[in-house]
């Protein structure tokens, strides 16, 4: 049973880092607007499709063989980030901004609508373009890394983890050191006071959606590289899990989202591998989603402020 442990941990870490970056998108938007951007999982999915399409088109033009795989990967990552960021900003403008002063549930309903709309639009586009709705991504990093002679780490997992860490470090630096980052934190703390300090709140919100969505789109590209096959419905469950990670870490808290994501990925991977053997086959790996949702429910009940969040008293 222990012999598969390194493999399980690596799987858990790659999954966890992807959850962590997607969770950042949820947590940033929630921190500023107190609103669950239900469509964020679909932005991630669109990023995966854009990145994969870039690689597939490069492949059909014969460019992919001549390029360095890292250059091709960076190119697809960049295009996916730009397009998914633009999509995120567009969704905010069309479906969320008119509802900013409406009850929160109305905005949530609009977000659910956007989520379903995007799923079908991607399916539709792929059906027109390729007559199928799922895509197989060309594998850019097929090799393995030998670590200490006991474990083989797939190169793609290393790429996923490294890129996720780079994105998180850059984001942390941006939020802590730059003027715009400080403005974002100010708006999250108190929008009306921030606007009195000559911060353009609307611009900050657009920036938040831009950054969160492009990070989500980039994670989509990582996902496609790691798992190979993508379909329009990958974003929904992954988005829910990433939201769970954000809640686990304390929603609105950037560090919490990162830790929560990695933790949830590891827990899920361990549950998937060991639930079956531990219960003698009564509950197998098919219950790993149940496991993740149960964590969400338990956290909300027992420690709603999450691991790193501050308890918020409701204002009357």
């Amino acid at each position, binding site marked *: 049973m222990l012999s598969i442990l390194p493999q399980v941990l690596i799987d858990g870490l790659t999954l966890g880092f992807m959850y962590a970056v997607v969770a950042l998108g949820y947590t940033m938007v929630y921190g500023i607007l107190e609103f669950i951007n239900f469509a964020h999982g679909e932005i991630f999915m669109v990023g995966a499709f854009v990145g994969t399409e870039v690689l597939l088109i490069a492949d059909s033009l014969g460019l992919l063989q001549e390029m360095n795989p890292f250059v091709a990967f960076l190119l697809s990552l960049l295009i996916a980030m730009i397009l998914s960021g633009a999509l995120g900003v567009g969704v905010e403008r069309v479906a969320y901004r008119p509802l900013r002063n409406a009850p929160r549930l109305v905005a949530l309903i609009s977000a659910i609508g956007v989520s379903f709309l995007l799923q079908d639009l991607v399916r539709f586009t792929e059906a027109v373009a390729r007559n199928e709705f799922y895509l197989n991504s060309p594998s850019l990093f097929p090799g393995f890394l030998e670590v200490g002679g006991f474990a083989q780490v797939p190169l793609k997992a290393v790429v996923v983890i490294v890129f996720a860490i780079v994105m998180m470090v850059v984001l942390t630096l941006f939020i802590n050191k730059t003027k715009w980052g400080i403005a974002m934190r100010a708006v999250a703390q108190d929008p009306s006071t921030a606007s009195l300090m000559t911060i353009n709140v609307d611009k900050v919100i657009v920036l938040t959606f831009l950054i969160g969505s492009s990070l989500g789109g980039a994670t989509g590209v990582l996902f496609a590289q790691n798992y190979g096959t993508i379909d329009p419905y990958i974003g929904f469950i992954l988005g829910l899990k990433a939201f769970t990670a954000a809640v686990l870490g304390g929603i609105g808290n950037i560090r919490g989202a990162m830790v929560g994501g990695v933790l949830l990925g590891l827990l899920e991977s361990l549950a998937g591998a060991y639930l079956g053997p531990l219960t003698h086959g009564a509950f197998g790996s*098919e219950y790993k989603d149940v496991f993740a949702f149960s964590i969400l429910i338990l956290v909300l009940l027992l420690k709603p402020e999450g691991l790193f969040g501050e308890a918020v008293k409701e204002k009357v």
Partner: protein
Amino acid sequence: MVKQVIANATGSLFKDRQVPLLLTLLWIASFTLALYILEKSVLAFMGILLSLLLVYYTKTSQTVKVVLGALILLVLIPLVAGDNRYYMEVATQVGIYVAMALGLNIVVGFAGLLDLGYVAFFAAGAYAYAIFATAQANHFIPGDLFPLGGEWFWPFLLVGLIVAALFGILLGLPVLRVKGDYLAIVTLGFGEIIRIIFNNLNKPINITNGPQGLTPVATPVLFGVQMNTPFYYYFIVLFVIAFIVLANIRFERSRLGRAWIAIREDELAAQSMGIPLLNTKLAAFAAGASFAGVVGVIFAAKQTFIDPTSFTLMESIGILVMVILGGSGSIPGVVLGAAFVTILQVQLLKEFSNFLHGLNSSGVISLPNQLDPSKFQRLVFGILLILAALYRPNGLIPAKRNINDIEAIKKSRFAKEKLGILANLNEGKRQSG
């Protein structure tokens, strides 16, 4: 100029957005005749269903409206479409969704709790009947007693109701401690959990038969009559809807219903007025769930086959679309929303897709399988949700607010009795004086 004349004429005709009785009667008669002559006309069938909406807006007394509605539902539709299985099937499906949407309306519309896992209760009711009405229960209950006969359908309507209500309470106890958008996500998670559990509960003990599903579920029997055609289901569903609508109206006007609405409007204010939050919300969950349970039993009997794929998140979202689009908290609105969305799904999209298939096979266009319009459920739901949220957040027929008529209250027989604080005040005066 002409436009203005027409506008004036229609303006005076539809004063206060009401339709004259004569026009309604004419409409009903003409579409009934049309459907009678043109047996397969979708348009005529839709016209008859639309006439129900027209009746709602007719300028006449409540009694006449009820009589007219009952006439259309009980006599005209079965009489004209009765031998056409397809129309009865559509009407039954509309009825099933109307009933479920009315149940969700209690949770979302009255109590303001956004429940994205509503289909779990529907599944609970359906499985409660299907497990015992097939040979499945023999797997875990010894004695070879099953399947139960069709006459057990009737008591199981009640069993489904109770099972689903219990499910609602069990689920609500942990879930209802969180609120707002968190509640939406948690109920969504619970809905998925229940589906996954039903999908995998074929081991260690085989209770739900897992992904293979359960079949054949016994169809209802009443006084020895096998009720296994859409014609009978139509009446069963109609009966259940009548019950649910009555319950909805009674709830809305009851003390509990007012408490739900108070919670929806402002939880803190409601709590400070002495409304027990958890109990009241649990009651909403249980009431909404119980209706879904009853409908689940009918669904299982009608389909004679159920498996976990009938209870996905899409179903929950679909029912939510019906409630939001129609007008959450408004009973006629929810009925309209459910009818509209169901007909859009089962009839219009399908007709359109059949039409395209016809073109496809005759070689006019080439249609990839993925572009089949009947697969565009998500797109349609998505657009409807966004449009409803942006432009009609209160729905097509918004809920009416009760206006307190002060004069009527002053004249009521309770006006003389001084209750509550007033009573104490008087007593205090008497003692001091």
